[in-house]
């Protein structure tokens, strides 16, 4: 079955208009030796059967347990209105707003989204989204590379390791040097980092809070970058930005990040939302779509895709990025989320997430054999170390029904016994208490 409305009679009529004998006739341009044989696919099924199958698969995913897993992707609360509004068909089933007059809904929403990103980051302009936080960071660094025409990138290894992988993929094989500065504990190694900046440096790359959850003020590093003629590029967790010094206040030229926390379900990795914002000097260098305000023939305000001359469909191989489809609906979701939470509520989310983390840190910190690895302040996650391999600990917690975080050994040397654990406003005190008890019991028994 398919979703085609065609009846036999209609098909006949259409073939007559076309002047073809049969539908297969229409495919006569496909050479005989290229005709596909039998597909190794079953025939179509009804919605009932398909949903039955998918429900089984869904049930085979044990989502929804107590979870303190974060690492850049957080289980913040999503009000029902986010789904209800973003799934309205005008948003869901439209294409890119090339034709502005019949796409004002998307266009105005994107303009509002860009504004929200600017207000969060303190920067002058933002684009209408890229794929995710990782590709956003890569695009941000490419902006710096284009601008400075330099080939060296100094990146803090406290940046999410997955993002560093993505950056490496984007820049590999093109003569770039990517210098990773190993952390000092759970924080940037300031001295080494600043020393690494030289006049070949296109960009310094920082994440705040960093992958270990540590919060820092990077003004010294961005200043060092600027005096070397380099650009400062960062990746920022939007919920933390509700409280923290903005990228603008800290001297960043380009701020990027993952917007998943703003109303996107975890959904096993996507769709998420990459944002890119920059100072006014960099705006015409942004990747992807940008919406601008303008007027119609009668002077009424309206919105259009603007600066399209940067983009692939106009500039082709000289475009600022190859991106075409972006994460538009996710950007709209983020805007809806931020509107619902609001100026005050969004800060509350941030404060609560941090305070839950502080509470957990206090509680876990009291367990004798446990060491909290972060020495500087943290936001909503931190690293704790036990005497056992992290996987052993996580395995045991899992048996108690708790996903207790991320083992860091696979990403960082010397962190084999360390776990990255994170909290949001949804983390219930009783669950944190339960976890702390289970953890202590387990560690005591293993003694």
């Amino acid at each position, binding site marked *: 079955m398919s979703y085609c409305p065609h009846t036999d009679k209609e098909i006949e009529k259409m073939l007559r208009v076309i002047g073809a004998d049969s539908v297969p006739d229409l495919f006569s341009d496909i050479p005989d030796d290229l005709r596909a044989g039998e597909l190794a696919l079953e025939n179509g099924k009804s919605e009932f059967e398909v949903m039955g199958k998918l429900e089984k698969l869904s049930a085979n995913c044990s989502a929804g347990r107590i979870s303190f897993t974060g690492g850049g992707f957080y289980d913040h609360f999503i009000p029902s209105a986010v789904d209800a509004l973003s799934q*309205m068909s005008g948003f869901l089933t439209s294409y890119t707003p090339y034709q502005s007059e019949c796409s004002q809904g998307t266009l105005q929403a994107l303009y509002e989204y860009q504004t929200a990103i600017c207000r969060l980051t303190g920067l002058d302009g933002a684009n209408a989204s890229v794929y995710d936080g990782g590709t956003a960071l890569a695009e941000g660094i490419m902006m710096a590379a284009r601008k400075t025409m330099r080939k060296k990138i100094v990146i803090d290894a406290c940046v999410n390791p997955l993002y560093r992988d993505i950056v490496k993929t984007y820049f590999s094989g093109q003569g770039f040097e990517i210098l990773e500065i190993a952390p000092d504990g759970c924080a940037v190694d300031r001295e080494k980092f600043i020393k690494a900046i030289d006049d070949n440096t296109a960009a310094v790359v920082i994440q705040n809070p960093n992958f270990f959850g540590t919060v820092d003020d990077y003004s010294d590093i961005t200043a060092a970058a600027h005096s070397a003629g380099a650009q400062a590029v960062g990746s920022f967790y939007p919920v933390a930005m509700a409280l923290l010094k903005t990228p603008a206040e800290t001297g960043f030229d380009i701020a990027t990040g993952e917007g998943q926390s703003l109303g996107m379900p975890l959904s096993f990795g996507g769709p998420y939302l990459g944002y890119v914002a920059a100072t006014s000097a960099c705006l015409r260098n942004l990747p992807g779509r940008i919406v601008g305000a303008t007027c119609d023939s009668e002077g009424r305000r309206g919105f259009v895709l603007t600066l399209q001359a940067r983009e692939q469909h106009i500039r082709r191989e000289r475009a600022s990025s190859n991106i075409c489809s972006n994460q538009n609906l996710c950007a709209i979701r983020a805007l809806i989320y931020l509107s619902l939470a609001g100026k005050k509520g969004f800060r509350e989310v941030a404060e609560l997430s941090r305070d839950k983390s502080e509470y957990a840190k206090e509680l876990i910190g009291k367990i004798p054999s446990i060491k909290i690895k972060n020495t500087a302040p943290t936001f909503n996650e931190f690293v704790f170390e036990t005497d056992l391999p992290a996987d052993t600990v996580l395995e045991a917690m899992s048996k108690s029904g708790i996903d207790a975080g991320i083992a860091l050994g696979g990403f960082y040397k010397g962190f084999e016994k360390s776990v990255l654990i994170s909290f949001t406003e949804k983390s219930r005190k009783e669950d944190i208490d339960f976890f702390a008890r289970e953890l202590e019991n387990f560690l005591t028994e293993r003694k």
Partner: protein
Amino acid sequence: MKLIYEKSVEGRKGVRIPVRDVKHYPFLPVDLLRKKPADLPSVSEFNTVRHFSALEKKNFSIDSNFYPLGSCTMKYNPKVLESAANLPGFRNLHPFLSYSARGLEAAQGALEILYNMEKALASLTGMDEISFQPMAGAHGEFAGIKIAAAYHAVRGEHRKIVLVPDTSHGTNPASSAMAGFDVVTIPSDKNGEMDMGEYRKKLNGSVAAVMMTCPNTLGIFNRNIKEVCGLARKAGALTYCDGANMNAVLGKMRPGDAGFDIMHLNMHKTFATPHGGGGPGAGPVCVKKYLSDFLPGEAVRKDDDGRFVIVKRPRSVGRLAPFFGNFGVLVKAYAYILLMGGDGLTDACEKAVLNANYIKAALEKFYELPYKRRCMHECVFSASAQAKKGVRALDIAKFLIDRGFHPPTIYFPLIVKEALMIEPTETESIETMDEFIKIMKEAASLAEEDPEAFKKMPVNSCVGRMDETAAARKLDIKYSK
């Protein structure tokens, strides 16, 4: 209409935040804090609902309008796909679980989808292995070109050129350039296919890859693709198929069989996942066996006990997404594949081509048809006759908006002057197409009779024709109150 910021009222509260069940901890040190709160909207939940309900009405969409935007495959997005992606096991699954043994247990259902979908897509494309990391078509292209680069690098070859036809989508040259290649364009011949003479001329030992779209953006099936691939192979170049137009050949022809080494698919086109006003999509990259080690990200495999596991690829070009790309979109595409089956997908392809040829035949006498031959899933007209009267493709687009029809893609492909690229897709009925045809004919008549009339259009939309030039000149991309 006012912006949400213009509706903001200091002190108005939005949704309630979960209750605080832990004490207030001392603030972070003040030198780490922002000076003032971000000036987000202060609106009620109801204000927000009204605002976005109003905005939503200002969009055309597939559910409400015929949307024959060429190269975009705006087919009906079955409602059940949303239910599928929202199943709690998928929706709430943390991706970092895929990084541990215990996490893999928790993700078996999700991994099974990826595993099965890889098999299904391989069977549809004639390719062997697939990475789901790319999050849109362009991302898939970038992945593919990176694979080509890695392939040549491993062989110690320094090939710096990618060949693309002049009909190619802008992302093709852009992706190649972003991966560090020089782009050389091959012209089309008078049939709208790649000019084989020029191709032969430009194909040399420096060429890393040849990118083709199949069928191409003129809606034409390049009858020489096998030869194109064969010649490339002989020259040591890889061939890349831009699969954005797969809807035209599903079940009829497999790019892998034609000799392509690499391709991507656009799930948000061919596989009916809603386009969301610009994304998210998914652009899985598919390769032949001999290139599978290079694929980005990890592979999903079944172990001897039938459990799904994640396996690193030894020579991967690296990571293009943190996990498995836009998984939620992939779930929808998977549901679509199950619903359609091999029979349904083939049927969809046939009807897509039937519909496009029907519109082509019906409008042929009213608009110039630069390539007079059978088309595949889309047909490309030129409004150049109308343009001589002063009515450009853009004007015709605005005329259509006034009549409640989304315009075709215009001014693309670049080699057709005043291009009107029409892709009806298979889910449109003959009634709707007849209505569209009637209105396109009216536009043609009006262009004869009163070309000036177009300049004021659209008048039925919430805003009139937008001044795009002013937008770019006096850049205003954020609201500042």
